[in-house]
């Protein structure tokens, strides 16, 4: 304990993406569950120990119905790790947490090919083929989260207050960076953050972070690059 107190080490925040199966129930739920059973019957352990995300976007379920559905699924050995498309108010401590920002990957092969397509499992966040970088030509708006664990992100436009860009590699913002930028989140300490104007709420590289309060005020509004040297942030002008 004393060691911790005398030498405080920053807690590192890291993002990591995994491939999860996504189940998209359809109404009426009873019919859908029957089809799920048929699918599961083809391969007994298909859902066992797999992370499964429940996507209920567009379904008009209330809290009790949702809890009931999750219960019925866990009765079938399907463990739900997160729920997508639910209102936050619906998910209490007794339900899996909300997930968002998932991106579709290739469809996961169902246990047998001749299964009806509507009961096929869709998969979400994906490693797929590694793409080194993406370019976004629109501003990243408040509330939006740009998540690209595979590599570099270039934004031609601004990143608004309340928006975030999470990249496995470096982040380039040709505009004002007002929101959060988290670079090198997959454990890349050599990732950097570049922006034409720094107004960021939070910067992070490889899990080390700095909030707006901790940033040197003279850097505000400047064109800068930020990198990590050991465990300290370095900032240089790029103007």
């Amino acid at each position, binding site marked *: 304990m004393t060691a911790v107190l005398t030498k405080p080490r920053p807690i590192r925040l890291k993002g990591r993406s995994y491939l999860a199966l996504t189940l998209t129930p359809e109404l009426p739920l009873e019919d859908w569950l029957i089809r799920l059973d048929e699918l599961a019957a083809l391969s007994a352990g298909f859902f066992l120990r797999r992370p499964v995300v429940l996507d209920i976007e567009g379904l008009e379920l209330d809290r009790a119905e949702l809890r009931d559905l999750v219960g019925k699924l866990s009765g079938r050995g399907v463990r739900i790790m997160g729920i997508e498309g639910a209102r936050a108010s619906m998910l209490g401590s007794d339900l899996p947490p909300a997930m968002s920002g998932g991106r579709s990957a290739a469809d996961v092969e169902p246990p047998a090919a001749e299964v009806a397509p509507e009961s096929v499992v869709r998969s979400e966040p994906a490693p797929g083929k590694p793409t080194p970088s993406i370019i976004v030509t629109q501003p990243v*708006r*408040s509330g939006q989260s740009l998540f690209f664990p595979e590599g570099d992100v270039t934004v031609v436009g601004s990143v*608004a*207050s309340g*928006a975030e860009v999470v990249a496995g590699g470096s982040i380039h913002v040709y505009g*004002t960076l*007002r929101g959060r930028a988290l670079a090198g989140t997959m454990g890349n300490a050599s990732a950097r953050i570049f922006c034409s104007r720094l107004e960021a709420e939070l910067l992070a590289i490889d899990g080390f972070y700095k909030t707006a309060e901790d940033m040197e005020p003279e850097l505000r509004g400047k064109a800068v690059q930020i990198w990590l040297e050991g465990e300290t942030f370095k900032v240089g002008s790029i103007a």
Partner: protein
Amino acid sequence: MGKVIVVTSGKGGVGKTTSSAALGAALAKGGDKVVVVDFDVGLRNLDLVMGAERRVVYDLVNVIQGEAKLTQALIRDKRVETLYLLPASQTRDKDNLTAEGVEKVIGALKSVFDWVICDSPAGIERGATLAMRHADVAIVVTNPEVSSVRDSDRIIGLLDSKTLRAENGEHMEKHLLLTRYDPVRAERGDMLKVDDVLEILSIPLLGIIPESMDVLRASNLGSPVTLADDRSAPSIAYFEAARRLQGENLPIMIPGEKRGFFGKIFGRKAA
């Protein structure tokens, strides 16, 4: 086919309802057939601002639930005969708005009217997302202050992802309407400058409505400001915004900036 406009903002109290009524009346005065639809189920205000609160019999929810015909729920304005109001329900819950119901109503209105103006409730919940769902054009109402600007930014993100147009990969036309602009406070630096707001939101400017007692006075009289006094400063600004909506290219004046700086005034590109 008419155009469907959603008037939205995220934040409450910035002037969505006032602007919906004022723009609707301004367009109707020019002879266009206009209907203004109140989506704020449970907290309706548009009927008051339009001075029709004592003439509401049926409302949007009645139409969606099949309890009334659309023609029974539409209220024709007494001052401008091409202006109609479709009120919201004050007693029902907004869960009564269904996606299919709203689609049917908007589809029917759009085949009859030149402009269908949807007055969105504040927030980003069901009422707001349904109001924007079928829009062709969005008017984002923003006050020159940070919280309003950030909420508007959030709404623009939703307009680009949750509307039918966005889902079909089409372009969603968005315009910024800057309301409650106070030249004196802007001069003192108490408010965000027009350029700052435009830089943050980066969508074209439809108009700047100056802060004015005329707006409040008109609302309390139950009249859109463009009908109450068409010579007042906010009224002129709304009329010009309406002409820009119709495709006219009018220069935008920043209230309080002196004439003569032609470069500054005419250098600004209108919506």
